[in-house]
């Protein structure tokens, strides 16, 4: 029993790392994703092409392969980053690819008439996006964004393959040392459920608030 308690404690330490990586990567991905989507929709041709190629690469390659290329592949060029930072960079790159598509769909969902109204009034592109287009797109995108954060968090489970000491890492150790996979994995599952449940709840509250503010 005390072994289980020990590994639960370790897994909770792992949860901190999971949350750190998820939160950091989510923020970076959303900012980069918004910028990427604007570039994809309104930027010059070269930028559009680049963003499209980027999204296709991220979407097209298996997640674990991307992670391995980044972590193991780069060492060939003498670039040796820690597992933690490699994990963070990969989560950001991966998240950005998906965030671009979410923002693109959200922005494209705003009727052309809204753009025309801002243009006819003489608003700058920037002001139009900031005051009119993004506030509306944001509301429409909230469910997809909630989903996005949950997926980012679940993606962190892959990181144990490169040795990041997240929940999964400690769960694996706990299972081999205690011989009780069901109990240990069950506890890990419980931790994930609580974390993702919280994310969904926050997303739900934001949606509700947005609906009232409309």
């Amino acid at each position: 029993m005390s072994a289980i308690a020990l590994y639960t404690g370790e897994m909770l330490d792992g949860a901190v790392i999971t949350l750190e990586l998820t939160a950091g990567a989510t923020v970076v991905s959303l900012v980069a994703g918004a910028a990427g989507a604007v570039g994809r929709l309104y930027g010059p041709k070269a930028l559009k092409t680049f963003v499209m190629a980027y999204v296709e690469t991220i979407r097209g390659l298996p997640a674990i392969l991307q992670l391995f290329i980044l972590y193991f592949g780069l060492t060939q060029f003498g670039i040796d980053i820690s597992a933690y930072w490699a994990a963070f960079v990969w989560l950001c790159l991966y998240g950005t690819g998906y965030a671009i598509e979410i923002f693109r769909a959200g922005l494209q969902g705003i009727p052309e008439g809204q753009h025309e109204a801002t243009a006819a009034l003489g608003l700058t592109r920037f002001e139009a996006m900031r005051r009119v287009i993004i506030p509306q797109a944001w509301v429409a995108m909230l469910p997809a964004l909630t989903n996005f954060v949950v997926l980012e968090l679940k993606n962190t489970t892959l990181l144990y393959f490169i040795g990041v000491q997240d929940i999964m890492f400690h769960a694996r150790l706990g299972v081999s040392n205690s011989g009780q996979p069901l109990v240990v994995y069950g506890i890990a599952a419980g931790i994930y459920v609580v974390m993702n449940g919280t994310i969904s709840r926050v997303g739900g509250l934001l949606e509700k608030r947005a609906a009232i503010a409309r």
Partner: protein
Amino acid sequence: MSNDVVVELEGVRKCFGPRVIFDDVSLSVHRSEVVAVIGPSGAGKSTLIRCINRLNTFERGVIRALGHEVYGTEEGKPALKRDELRELRTEIGMVFQTFNLFPHLTVMKNVMLAPQRVKGLSEAQATARALELLEMVGLSHRKDAHPRQLSGGEQQRVAICRALAMEPKVMLFDEPTSMLDPELVGDVLATIRRLALDGMTMILVTHEMMFAKEVANTVVVMADGRIAEMGPARQVLSAPKTERARSFLERVLPHTDGGGVTDVRTHPQDQGGPIAGPIDSIGGSALWSREADEEELL
């Protein structure tokens, strides 16, 4: 170009792909003139006025608005730079068929947004201007509502306020009443009539023939990708000179639901023109009573 000309089109051609929408459109709009553009659907009326503030580009010809060439199609004549175009658009008010209010903002914020963010008015100045305009269109009591809580007619009047808040020198109306239920049309037309009385220069695409006849100085009939006829409103609408304009007017006038149609003879062909009798009122609706006195001036 005389100083008095606010908008001028010369030989404008617009294509969508290989299809020519209209060609060789020339038109001058003078200060305080009200020009109504009428014609069958698909004649390019909306596209035409959208070219004036360059929401649409065009393939040939020249459009000058407030002394600026809005789009250079001639070689060696560069188009306005992005900021110059933006500057020009602040002086050209536009009202859309579908209102296009900002749904996430209140009525007040819809009207205040551009004065604050484009013209740099303070919150207090923008509020004062917005209230004054909403008062004028009779909607100050709805200032905190969101657009979806308003009727179409109310939304369109807010949209007019939003455009007027920028103090434009010319207003473009793109079928402002065609999305409205018939009973809501009157309030919007009353607002436009009031602007005409105040001397606003306006170009108005409309299907309200009676209204065009009453408020417009000039009527432009567009058909088959050209200006079929253009001239003083009463003359064009009562006694069109061209066959194309006449056949269009004959088809639309008996069905026009502007309220005054009962005054129109039912056999326009007897008169060589669709409008036989004097149609100076729009059916004497109470909607107009406010401006009844001023109306005489027209």
